[in-house]
């Protein structure tokens, strides 16, 4: 879970069931090295922009990928994405929408705001585990973060 060291994945998820299942799937795929979990959009922005509870965290440690649910309390996922893309510090940070929504308007809006991937969480747990494995492999292992983020 949240470690003082490097953060590789920022997981934004309010549903505890989904959170446990996602973490389980990540664990199963051995992608648990550094996961920061936040439970709503406001917390996610606090973490990313070093505010509130996260004001003291190491500013050089940025996640390599953000897994973002759309439907979130306080600030929703699309709003978080918009804020990230508006800020130079997070503009190029890869964001994967991990959501229940099949809604086309959500998908279109996400891509318009500059999401990198959009994954609909399947009901089938086997398929879900597979999807999490694929996205982890892609964004953490194959897709190297840009130097700006690394810096």
């Amino acid at each position, binding site marked *: 879970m949240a470690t003082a060291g490097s953060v590789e994945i920022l997981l934004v998820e309010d*549903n505890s069931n989904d959170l446990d299942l996602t973490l389980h799937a990540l664990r199963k795929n051995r992608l648990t090295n550094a996961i920061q979990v936040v439970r709503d959009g406001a917390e996610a922005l606090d973490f990313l922009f070093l505010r509130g509870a996260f004001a003291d965290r190491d500013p050089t440690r940025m996640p390599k990928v953000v897994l973002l649910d759309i439907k979130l309390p306080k600030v929703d996922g699309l709003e978080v994405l918009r804020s990230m893309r508006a800020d130079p510090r997070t503009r190029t940070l890869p964001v994967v929408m991990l959501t229940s929504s*099949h809604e086309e308007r959500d998908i279109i809006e996400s891509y318009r705001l500059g999401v990198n991937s959009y994954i609909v969480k399947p009901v089938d747990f086997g398929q879900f585990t597979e999807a999490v494995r694929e996205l982890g492999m892609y964004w953490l292992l194959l897709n190297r973060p840009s130097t700006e983020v690394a810096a």
Partner: protein
Amino acid sequence: MHRVSLLARARLFLIAGWAAIVAAIIVAGYGAWAARDGYQRADLARQLELANKDLLVGMVDQETGLRGYVNSAEAAFLQPYLVGVQEVHSALQQITSDASGPQLAQELTQSRTAVAAWQAWASSQKAGVDASGKPMTDPTQVAEGKKLFDVFRATNERLQSTAVGRAHEATLQAQSGQRLGFGLLLIAGILIAITLAGLGRIVNSGILRPIAQLAQIARELAMGSAAKVLASDRRDEFGDLSRALAAWQVSAAERDRLFTLSVDMFAIAGFDGIFKVVNPAWEKTTGHTREELTSRPYLDFVHPEDRGPTTAEASKIETGATTLSFRNRYQCKDGSYKWLDWAAVPDVAEGLIYAVARDVSEQKVAEERIESLNGALEERATQLEAANKELEAFSYSVSHDLRAPLRAIDGFAGILLEEHAAGLGDEGRSYLQRVAGAARHMGQLVDDLLRFSQLSRQPLQKRLVDVGQVVERALYQLQTSREGRHVDIVVGTLPDCLGDSALLEQVFVNLIGNAIKYTERKDPARVEVGCQTTDGGPPVYYVKDNGAGFDMRYADKLFGVFQRLHRSDEFEGTGIGLAIVQRIVHRHGGRIWPAAEVGQGATFFFTLRGETQWQQLAA
């Protein structure tokens, strides 16, 4: 018909008449002149004749006197001689004053010469007697004198005869000239009379009578009591006039018919607010007689609420404005009101308003009904829109919130099965598997339902579609479903169509997918995709299989959402596929119908456009 103008005819007649009269008068004038000339000449001839007679008398007197003197030598006899000399002298002078014509002049000269010759002889005889103082009885001298006198007498007679002839001839000429003059004057008189009579006839029969007739007809036309005007076949101005009148009568009659037979109400109203003329439609529509309508101000008939606007409209018209659609209510004889729609134009100079009104009461009722219907429709549309929004919100929350717990059920069941299987036992594992299966099935149902509801919200992206390619893509999607099976799939010729290719692909995926599914227990399994074209109708696409088929009695349940004709342990499925197919077909304006028999297979036919649409397109 060649037109002959009355004016031209009268002019021609006048010219001919006057020319004849002038000619006759000229000739008559010549006759008068000839008569006068003849009488003058006859007069001269008669004077000559008298002078010639005087000459003869004078000569005879001279000769008698001379003879007495010569025979007696007595001076008393000289008296008649001397008188005779005087007479001859004056006669000769008279004769000399007239000498017309060479013959007369010659005869005069001869006569004068003969007179002179005898007078010279007579003078010599007298001188002889004067000298001798005694009578002379020389017979030779007597013979000489007689000879000379005879010469004179002969010339005198010739001259006399010439003068008489001349007088007679001149008299004849004068008389014939007189006759000619009188005759021609008579002729001229007759010609004048004829000319006057002819002109009179032309004026009377050609002008006065037709004018009187036309005036009578015009009077009758003005009073509206004329029988049919017969267009005259005359080829003059009156022909033109009578034809014009006949034509005018026809058009006036048409106008009259329009006025009398029209269902619309025509009225002429004065600026004083009273109708001057109304047509029979008024009586038919309002029940009031013409007398009632034209004896009271029209405002009396207008609904009290409409009197203000009506007065305002009338004063607008009185300033020269034209009204095209003004409505007010008129009271009928039975007390009810009718809505009238007015169009009116003023004749400001005459102080009149020409108006047409139409009974629009029924239209008004219909309009009110349409208005209220429109209101209801708008309300309904608003409700529908709200319902649609609610539905959208509902399906949005379904897609999120309904799936999350299912995912948790399946997910945790999966984790249990994977990581805690040992503690569960066989029965426990089997139950847990069924829990997970049920959750997955429900997830599928939720997904299907969402897709189905999205179908009616998405707009159609219609364009020309290559149906063959669509089927190819559908078959590619279905590859996994036929893995490990042998299915003969035959695709016939498929005409292009106008439609949304993604949705059409869904139609073929569902229909062919069904065909593959329901032929599971057939060997050889056979699926046929094709198209039938019919005369004048849209193409009918079909998907046919030789699978399980179904009982046609339940065909109406096929297309309902989650309606199934097979148990799910026989054939998998949620029962949404055909509902989706039907919705897509309907949204394209087409229809779908099945043909099937239990155990023999099923065929689904569909069109993508209604019959009428297709006919419009074909035409």
